[in-house]
């Protein structure tokens, strides 16, 4: 109850921190989609390179977040960004790579070879094939990777408060420092809620982006509506 009252009384502060939190995650995941999908597509036809890239991304994933943030302070302070939002975004960007690259490359390399053969045989260039056929067909799996990356990042972004990036992690850190359970719980609860909410929202986006022809259930209900109206 006390925690809820705390959240009510500090609505302004919490929404500010929430905004910071989501902004860091959004920038990091946004950039990671650009690089992750590109890398995933590029390596999908080269099994050897794919093994190496995925292994490297998996290693990145195993670095404890506190250690990664710590490691970046001396490196980035060379250019004056040792602490704050920049190292936080970079770290989250790195953590988002594995799920996005892995899902993209799996989706592209598992595409029915007949589709590729038909596309090439009909005279599509590589770019046209990707744009018109392979990426649309791969959307559900790529989006699943993006959702995973986002949820992971929302959690890890809490640690970024230690290097001064702000966000809801600040509440948790202060809660620990001041032995204030209310603040600590408030931070933790809000982070969990936005992680779940983001996952749902992205699921909605996933369904929206998935081509109609790939979703039999949606088609069936759509046709039913056509019949009844």
């Amino acid at each position, binding site marked *: 109850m006390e925690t809820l009252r705390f959240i009510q009384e500090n609505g302004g502060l919490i929404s500010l921190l929430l905004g910071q939190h989501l902004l860091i995650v959004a920038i990091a995941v946004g950039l990671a989609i650009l690089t992750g999908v590109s890398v995933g597509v590029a390596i999908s036809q080269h099994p050897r390179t794919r093994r190496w890239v995925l292994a490297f991304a998996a290693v990145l994933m195993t670095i404890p977040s506190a250690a990664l943030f710590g490691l970046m302070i001396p490196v980035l302070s060379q250019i004056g960004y040792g602490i704050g939002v920049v190292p936080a975004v970079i770290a989250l960007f790195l953590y988002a790579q594995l799920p996005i690259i892995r899902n993209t490359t799996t989706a592209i390399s598992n595409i*029915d070879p*007949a*589709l590729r*053969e*038909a*596309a*090439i*045989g*009909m*005279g*599509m*260039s590589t770019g*046209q094939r990707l744009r*018109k*056929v392979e990426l*649309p*067909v791969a959307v559900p799996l790529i989006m699943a990777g993006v959702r995973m990356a986002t949820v992971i990042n929302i959690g890890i972004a809490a640690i970024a408060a230690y290097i001064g990036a702000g966000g809801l992690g600040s509440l948790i850190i202060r809660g620990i420092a001041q032995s204030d359970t209310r603040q600590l719980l408030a931070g933790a609860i809000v982070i969990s809620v936005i992680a779940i909410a983001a996952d749902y929202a992205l699921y909605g986006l996933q369904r929206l982006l998935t*081509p*109609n*022809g*790939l979703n*039999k259930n949606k*088609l069936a209900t759509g046709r039913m509506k056509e019949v009844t109206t």
Partner: protein
Amino acid sequence: MIQIENLNKQFGAVTAVEDVSFNVEEGQICVLLGPSGCGKTTTLKMINRLITPTSGTIRINGRDTSELDSVTLKRSIGYVIQQVGLFPNMTVEENICVVPDLLGWDKSKSRKRAGELLEVVALDPAKFLKRYPCELSGGQQQRIGVARALAADPPVMLMDEPFGAIDPINREVIQDEFRRIQRLVNKTVLFVSHDIDEAVKMADCVALFHNGKIQQFGSSDDLLARPNSEFVANFMGGDRIMKRLRLLRAADVLSKIAPRQHMQIVGSSSGIAAHSHLIVKPGDDLRQVLSQLLGRGQDWALCNDCDGRFIGYVHQADILARLVQNITPAVH
């Protein structure tokens, strides 16, 4: 129309296609026939350069295809594969319009053509244009595959076992359909198959492949009746003479000689048979005619034209005599 000269393909140390030469005339269906791994599909894919030949020339309409850009070449040739490969993210209409769109055709023109092509392949445009591939049966999908290959009106079509994945009943239907479509659009078709019956039914000419070489090139009847080697004779099957029945029509054995009345094969119930002679049309294939005659225990049938006018008799003995005409009695 298509001239292939001394075509070779090496995959490393393996020779997949060796010194293959043949010509296909405009408007003909040429079936590349043979067992798995005989080089027929490799030959087909070298024509639209999905596979690059090691040596040899391919001319389409007199033009050496190696002078053409690979993408332009592919867009100018219709291509149908066994697994169909319809794009699941596109509607039937969008699938059919893929090549016209790549060629930058006017949208309204290509959309109109999609509707016309659906009618050609006997599917209702109002019902199917906006559907997705996952909502279609295998046979319907392959009809769309054929329509898609015809979309930009290419003079040449390459078909890689197009009906191989369709159940036997629907395969017969779609083969008949394709023959009808072919008469309508008059394309030059290269058709890969391992099914002798399909080849006999579809082909104007057959190239029988074995170990990367053409063993025999000729009409279906040449291969069935006059095989040039033991391999060809064996491949065409022990019943190859019987398979000639498929190539013959009732009109081929039409006779004016009336049968002696009531002459029935032993065992038939002459009472009924005398009043119900089999009536066939000139276009009926002799395999069916003979089968029906045997089934009824009769040895002749009446032949009426489309308007139901009597034009002659079909005798069982004439059918059998026709089967063994022009055959090479023994091979090597």
